């Protein structure tokens, strides 16, 4: 009952099938799209492992200039051709789409070359370490409409978060008051390597001249989630950072805090630390009628005592946090029974248990096929002289694609990350003119 009411409140269609991995593998998941993965470091390996689970995403090529990483990742994709130079991978006609998982400051040339080579592109977030490079990437995506481009803002593909945004738009939390988030994990963030030179290369994230540090490389997802949930872009950011524990010569702080200012007097605080693990990562959104907590793919609503009743919450599962009772929110459109049970049953109650990266790549495969087939059909019927008309058709096609971050989302999030990084390094407040978010 609670699920039906939640579904009705969200306006979501009742007939969404259950998205378990097993079912995805056994149903018609769409024609395959052949992948090349450029950048076989930690995240690249994660991506290859995730693609291996998708039924229609064969990895046919891998690239890394560091042989040991290339060989190691090759063990997860034994049929993939291995390249040391990304240009050779892009020349491989068997590759239809590329995932770019190199260090962020190396994305630009690879994205530009990949689009010129006619490949669909999934570019990890942040798009780049500077606003100029992020803009160049976004413009390249815009100038190549025949290829599909997706930014690696995984949360935008997460079905639970997609449901939550629709729910938030119904005004469930009343008037927006503020927001807060954190990412805590006690870890050095430093990677070991056999030589000093390689260690310097592999620890690019600790170099303030090469990366946007914690706020960009880790915080990008929660920064974007705020823009998405609040429906606003920040107008100013105040930042502060310090190196509390990991004093090993790194130029990036290990503990950072920012305050984002939005229109209407709304502020959002965000802190990231590598020095303490308490409470890991979550986001809070505060409204005059309720607060919303989002942890990973789970969410709870905490209603104010004077907030109007929605009705269905009487039947909903509830969890207690210290003195607060949270109503469990789940995008469980297929179950018509009340969500019950204790916390241990969360996995059973919530069918969306795959990682955001899984959903992001699954949706990329689907969207790349829809995009490519749409372009092919358009050209077969009307030719390709008039790109403006093709672009009009591609706008129509958006309704057939699954939720995903596009180049505009990627660019805007990267602008926020770069400005936040600048504020942190300068221990200051920086204003962000709205024109900076526009792609000329």
């Amino acid at each position, binding site marked *: 009952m609670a699920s039906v009411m939640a579904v009705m409140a969200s306006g979501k269609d009742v*007939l969404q099938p259950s998205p378990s991995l097993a079912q995805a593998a056994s149903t*018609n998941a*769409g024609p395959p799209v052949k992948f090349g993965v450029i950048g076989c470091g930690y995240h690249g390996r994660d991506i290859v492992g995730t693609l291996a689970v998708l039924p229609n995403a064969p990895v046919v090529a891998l690239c890394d200039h560091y042989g040991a990483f290339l060989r190691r990742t090759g063990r997860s994709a034994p049929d993939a051709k291995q390249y040391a130079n990304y240009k050779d991978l892009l020349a491989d006609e068997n590759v239809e789409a590329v995932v770019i998982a190199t260090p962020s400051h190396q994305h630009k040339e690879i994205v530009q070359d990949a689009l010129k080579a006619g490949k669909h592109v999934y570019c990890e977030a942040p798009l780049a370490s500077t606003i100029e490079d992020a803009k160049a990437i976004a413009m390249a995506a815009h100038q190549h409409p025949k290829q599909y481009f997706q930014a690696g803002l995984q949360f935008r593909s997460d079905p639970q978060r997609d449901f939550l945004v629709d729910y938030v738009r119904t005004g469930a939390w009343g008037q927006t008051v503020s927001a807060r988030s954190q990412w805590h994990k006690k870890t050095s963030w430093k990677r070991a390597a056999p030589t000093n030179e390689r260690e310097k290369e592999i620890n690019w994230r600790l170099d303030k001249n090469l990366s946007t540090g914690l706020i960009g490389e880790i915080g990008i997802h929660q920064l974007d989630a705020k823009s998405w949930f609040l429906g606003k872009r920040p107008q100013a950011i105040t930042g502060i950072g310090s190196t509390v524990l990991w004093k090993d010569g790194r130029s990036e702080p290990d503990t950072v805090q920012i305050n984002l200012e939005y229109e209407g007097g709304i502020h959002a605080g965000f802190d990231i630390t590598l020095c303490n693990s308490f409470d890991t990562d979550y986001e809070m959104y505060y409204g005059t009628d309720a607060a919303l907590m989002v942890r990973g793919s789970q969410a709870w609503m905490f209603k104010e005592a004077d907030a109007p009743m929605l009705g269905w919450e009487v039947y909903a599962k509830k969890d207690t946090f210290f003195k607060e009772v949270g109503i469990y929110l789940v995008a469980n459109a297929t179950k018509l029974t009340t969500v019950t049970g204790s916390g241990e049953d969360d996995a059973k109650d919530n069918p969306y248990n795959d990682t955001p990266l899984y959903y992001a790549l699954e949706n990329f495969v689907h969207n790349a096929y829809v995009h490519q087939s749409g372009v092919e059909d358009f050209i077969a*019927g*009307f030719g390709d002289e008039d790109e403006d008309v093709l672009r009009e058709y591609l706008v129509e096609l958006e309704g*057939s694609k699954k939720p995903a971050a596009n180049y505009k989302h990627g660019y805007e999030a990267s602008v926020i990350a770069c400005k936040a990084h600048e504020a942190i390094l300068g221990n200051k407040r920086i204003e962000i003119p709205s024109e900076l978010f526009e792609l000329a």
Partner: protein
Amino acid sequence: MKLSQRIICYWSVLSLIWASTLLSQAQNTTYKGMFRGSSMKVDGTSTVHDWTIESKLISGAIELKGAFPSDLAVSEVPALSGTPKADVKISARSLKSGKPKMDQVMLAAMKADDHPWITYSLKSLAPSKAERKSGDALAYDSVGELTVSGVKKEIKMPVTFTPTEKGMKINGKIQIKMTDYGIDPPAPKIALGLITVGDELDLTFEWHTQKK
């Protein structure tokens, strides 16, 4: 007849034939399908809810001998000089429901991998005998061949022609059955149980063309 007179006579006849051919060719008009504004909707039913799929890519052309009547202020729909040639094609995978899973079910039922195109070829076009008033679109009764999933069937369909700034807008509507084209109405299994899709489909199209 003297030889010179005969030669002049033959050349005159040949010139007349050549000129009249040129004249009739100059009068042929081609209207090429446009993306902007065109749409084919398929409305169907099921045991759970009604559904609609739509394609915005209707390509092809219609060629007429002579110009198409453009005066809607006529009291009667004029006959056309000769049967126009019209060939239309729509990619099966360009039909979209807005729900990715439903699109996959539909394409599988249509065997779209083996039969990627829906095609239509016009065989005859006669003025409609239905009552009309001045200013109404020009109504005709068409007979043509519709091919879906590799199965060709003759269909009779009332259509209307409306001149536009760029060329011609053609509208039509017909009801067909999936099973007539060898398509088994899908019965996808979902968490609630089986959905059974209804056999009858309403096809409604609006095709915008540009005069070439």
